[in-house]
């Protein structure tokens, strides 16, 4: 399997200047709104520390809280399933639908179902799946995965959406007014809500103490998905647990402030028990999470609440777009999670970072994202997944830089400067430094040569 080539994909993204500029501005705007929220709460850093501590506690007692959650959910009347991996999750969902003869499923946004590739699995088994979140619906109709975990179609201009909707929903191709487009999606989705035989959501949080699922949305589509059909399925990653309802307040205060720079989502729904005459199923999904929990350097990534703040602030993500990562999870959080799913396929992603650390600074649960990126690089090199040219360049650099004699020969070679130095310093035989940048001029003498001449050996 060939590794995803992020640099190549980013180059295409950058070529579309209007899209790039909009994408960068839109996400930077979210980052600025987030900053304003942090300034309005004097206890911001305290909240981050608290959120991080609650998550660490939960993850280090995860088995206990999962059992408590299961017991309480069953007591509430829900039916609980456990799925070891994506295949088990998809099979379980398919069987639940099958046992009700359900052929149509309306669903709210869920990164987990994308992670499991659930939609194509169900569709090939004759089940119609309708995404009801506006951004997810745009992406579904355009047959593309989401490019951002909170704003799935953020890489599209409204004219792109108009083109997708006119092609798939029959809207006026010349009308890209956002209200018109949103209303068109609402009107065409409504019949699906009324007719669907099953509804599905993911979970932002799952509360062990109450056995309830908490879903935070801005469109009300999750509530319609849950309350209209007679069958409700919640897909829940096992890391979504919180011990008690009192802990939820910390996270509800953080989630939307970090995601969109708004104080809270429009709707925070608590789904606890099935209505009379209906069924509520909860599928608890591992899919690599317990393995990640055992990784000394990387288990911290499980604290993630999927707010997307690290993506909004990431200068690389903003200039390459989520699809350039070729994975369900993109941006800073993506590059530290994706290698756990497939090290080879995602081996280039931890290098799609300048290690600038802004992601770590915004993270509401204090995941040391850029430090994990650094550590993934070590793992990738150790497991022989570096491109040959980089591996070879580093071996040579290591030899030259550890020998004062070789080093001096390299940097002091008269006339070799401009030709030889950039290659030596920048480690690439097909050096692309000069494509969009001038190469620094080599000076007449190095600092060391100046020093020896001017200060002698005093």
């Amino acid at each position: 399997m060939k590794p995803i080539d992020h640099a190549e994909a980013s180059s295409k993204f950058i070529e579309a200047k209007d899209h790039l500029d909009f994408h960068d501005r839109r996400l930077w705007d979210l980052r600025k709104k987030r900053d304003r929220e942090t300034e309005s709460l004097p206890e911001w850093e305290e909240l981050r520390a608290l959120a991080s501590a609650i998550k660490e506690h939960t993850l280090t007692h995860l088995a206990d809280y999962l059992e408590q959650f299961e017991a309480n959910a069953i007591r509430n009347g829900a039916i609980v399933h456990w799925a070891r991996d994506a295949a088990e999750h998809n099979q379980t969902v398919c069987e639940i639908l099958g046992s009700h003869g359900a052929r149509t499923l309306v669903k709210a946004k869920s990164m987990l179902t994308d992670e499991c590739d659930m939609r194509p699995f169900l569709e090939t088994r004759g089940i119609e799946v309708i995404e009801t979140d506006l951004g997810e619906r745009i992406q579904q109709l355009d047959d593309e995965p989401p490019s951002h975990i909170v704003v799935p179609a953020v890489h599209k201009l409204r004219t792109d959406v108009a083109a997708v909707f006119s092609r798939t929903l029959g809207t006026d191709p010349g009308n890209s007014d956002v209200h018109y487009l949103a209303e068109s999606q609402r009107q065409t989705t409504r019949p699906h809500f009324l007719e669907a035989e099953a509804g599905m959501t993911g979970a932002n949080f799952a509360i062990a103490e109450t056995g309830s699922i908490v879903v935070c949305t801005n469109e009300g589509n999750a509530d319609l998905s849950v309350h209209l059909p007679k069958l409700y399925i919640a897909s829940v990653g096992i890391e979504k647990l919180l011990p008690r309802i009192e802990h939820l307040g910390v996270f509800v205060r953080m989630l939307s402030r970090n995601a969109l720079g708004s104080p809270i989502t429009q709707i925070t729904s608590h789904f606890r028990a099935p209505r009379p005459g209906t069924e509520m199923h909860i599928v608890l999904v591992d899919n690599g999470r317990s393995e990640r929990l055992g990784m000394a350097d990387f288990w911290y990534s499980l604290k993630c609440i999927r707010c997307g703040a690290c993506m909004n602030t990431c200068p690389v993500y903003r200039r390459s777009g989520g699809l350039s990562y070729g994975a369900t999870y993109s941006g800073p959080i993506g590059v530290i999670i994706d290698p756990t799913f497939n090290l080879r396929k995602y081996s280039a992603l931890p290098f799609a970072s300048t290690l600038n650390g802004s992601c770590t600074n915004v993270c509401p649960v204090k995941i040391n994202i850029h430090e994990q990126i650094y550590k993934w690089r070590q793992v990738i090199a150790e497991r022989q997944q570096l491109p040959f040219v980089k591996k070879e360049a580093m071996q040579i650099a290591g030899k030259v830089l550890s020998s004062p004699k070789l080093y001096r020969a390299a940097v002091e070679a008269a006339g070799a400067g401009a030709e030889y130095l950039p290659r030596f310093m920048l480690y690439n035989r097909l050096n692309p430094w000069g494509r969009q940048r001038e190469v620094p001029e080599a000076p007449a003498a190095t600092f060391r040569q100046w020093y020896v001449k001017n200060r002698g050996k005093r």
Partner: protein
Amino acid sequence: MKVALFIPCYVDAFFPEVGIATLELLERLGIEVAYPLDQTCCGQPMANSGCEKDAAATEALFVRNFTGFDYVVGPSGSCVHHVRDHLTAIDQTPEVIAVRARTYELVEFLHDIVKVRDFPWAEFPHSVGLHIGCSTLRALKTAKMSEIAGAAFSKPLQLLSTVRGIRFVTPDRPDECCGFGGTFSVFEEPVSAKMGHDKVTDHHNAGAEYIVSPDMSCLMHQKGCAERLGLPVKFIHIAQILNGDRG
């Protein structure tokens, strides 16, 4: 106080004037400075590429060169960050631990250790945009970071603000990364160059004649970008201004 001057490889090879300014500035302040002649690099290029093992011999050489000094001072935050936080490819002997703990970036050394608050010889009658490299900002915490709530402070700005005639401009995104990132600059060239172009354009639009920085590697990248775009922005290391360079 025995201070060793640490001149990173790229400064040695490309920007000797920055090394000279750093040395002269420290000497002006009455500090006795030694320059170990066998120094090369700190190991960061290999380690940041995932090749810690290839960095081990270079790290060992670094420690051999800089053992026995009270302080090791270098005009480059990312190299100091590597020494302090990532020089882990070799056994952590007492010598290694001591060298790592005593290594300082120039601005923090002047600000925190020497506690210099004014540079009477310095004058820089230009408008400047300050660029603090990400390692200097977010790892060495030399200034308030825009992501973290709290009171404003900036060690580089505090030192520069005593320079006669200097005027500061504020770009739209003062602490967004400029896209250098070491080997990122070649292996992720499209995004790196775009970030660099955006950075120098932002400073230029804010009215900067000069971009000044404690991090010459960022400036090497930014200078290449500005020249390619044809922007009339000039670049200077903070040591040069504090040492009296008038631009």
